[in-house]
């Protein structure tokens, strides 16, 4: 049995071990690879920069703990940018666990900018109903939102009173891990009410958004942890996403090496037969 035959029979636990090492070693000993900025991410940043002080940004937290590793860093980086620009944040969630994750991000960022709940930001919680809910929300927010996440009547909060329909929303940022999510915001909210939509998605969903980027239905896109790392770089807040880039780079290289070895074995086995 030569070396290629031995590699072909490689125990998959060794592959798991190599992946584990490729993830953990760069986290413990960062390499500091440079993060380039792509156009879809820069477009989101520029859109936020262009909004005047006091504009209302809807942040829709449409993911759950399963996608937290990819989307939470984007949530924090985006909120930091909004608060730094003195924009008002109206948080909502199309997924049941989303608003709770959004609250964690708000609690960690808002105090640094002395933002006041109810005036500068509000979390109205999970709203079920997907596409139909979005149509109703855009026409009359009061039909969907009667209280915030904690149960406080929405009309008792200044920001709650300020958002009556889609015309009061200057930008929607959906942090999306699936359905319902970014597609519903584009198809049912953007198409009907014309509100600009930006998104941060999991890496696996990012290629699906490019038709909407090129058609102008999406302002911009933060794809996966890399998109979050680019945004962190733009807002000069190097945190979890930038820290994860070394690991992700090494794991991608390792997977490409696995693919190459696997195909060398394929060619070899064909010749032997």
């Amino acid at each position: 049995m030569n070396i290629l035959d031995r590699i072909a029979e490689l125990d998959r636990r060794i592959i798991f071990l190599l992946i584990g090492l490729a993830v953990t070693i760069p986290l413990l000993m960062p390499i500091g690879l440079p993060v380039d900025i792509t156009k879809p991410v820069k477009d989101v940043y520029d859109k936020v920069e262009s909004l005047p002080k006091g504009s209302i940004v809807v942040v829709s937290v449409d993911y759950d703990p399963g996608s937290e590793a990819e989307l939470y860093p984007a949530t924090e980086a985006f909120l930091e940018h909004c608060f730094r620009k003195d924009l008002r944040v109206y948080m909502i969630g199309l997924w049941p666990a989303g608003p709770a994750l959004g609250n964690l991000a708000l609690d960690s960022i808002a105090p640094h900018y002395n933002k006041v709940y109810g005036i500068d930001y509000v979390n109205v919680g999970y709203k079920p109903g997907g596409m139909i809910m979005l149509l109703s929300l855009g026409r009359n927010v009061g039909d969907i939102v009667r209280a915030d996440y904690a149960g406080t009547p929405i009309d008792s909060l200044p920001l709650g009173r300020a958002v009556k329909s889609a015309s009061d929303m200057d930008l929607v940022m959906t942090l999306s891990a699936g359905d319902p999510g970014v597609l519903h915001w584009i198809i049912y909210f953007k198409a009907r009410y014309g509100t600009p939509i930006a998104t941060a998605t999991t890496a696996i969903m990012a290629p699906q958004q490019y038709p909407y980027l090129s058609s102008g239905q999406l302002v911009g896109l933060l794809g996966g942890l890399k998109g979050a790392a680019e945004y962190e770089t733009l807002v000069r807040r190097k945190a979890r996403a930038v820290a994860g880039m070394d690991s992700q780079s090494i794991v991608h290289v390792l997977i490409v090496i696995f693919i190459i070895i696997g195909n060398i074995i394929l060619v070899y086995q064909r010749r032997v037969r």
Partner: protein
Amino acid sequence: MKRTLPLIIVFSCGFFMIIAFFVPLRGFQDVSQTFQNWYTGVIAFFVFIGIFNLVKVNLDKIQRRLRDWQYSIILLAFLSMMMAAGFIGGREGGIFLYMFENLQIPLGATMFSLLAFFVGSAAFRAFRARTPEATLLLVAAVLVMIGRVPVGYWIWHGFPSLVEWIMNVPNTAAKRGILFGADLGLISMALRVLLGIERSYMGGGKE
């Protein structure tokens, strides 16, 4: 009547909503909004149906000692604990938030992160260039995988631009084709349901 009445409801409500989407008259919009609000209310009850179904299926599994029935006990125990914590202490503090932050988030992230190991194993055993089409897909995948991470930019500064081109041109073209096909199918299916040609959604049963 058992079949005719649902068909009439589906036909009239469906076509009314289509018309209301394009006709901005106030009367149409008000009725349409009422329908939408009813829908949102009905959807909220699906959560209860989901929980009821989850409990029923898992209780049945425990009673009949089906495969891995022990996991059902853990599931029901934690479901009860989270619900009790939420009802007693509220969602914004105490034990509910503690369990959300220290159990649900890390466990969810752990489940998702296992994918890295399986993708690594699949890359070695399954991503094989057996046909010209598979080779093309594999080459594109390798370019995107390297170009989408900082190491690609480090190797060659043009890598990210190449990846953006792959995403913007071949990927978008293929995706648009798929979307058009799927949407045309969706429209034809919707028309079949509205016109009563497709009736499988009503289940079995006689008139």
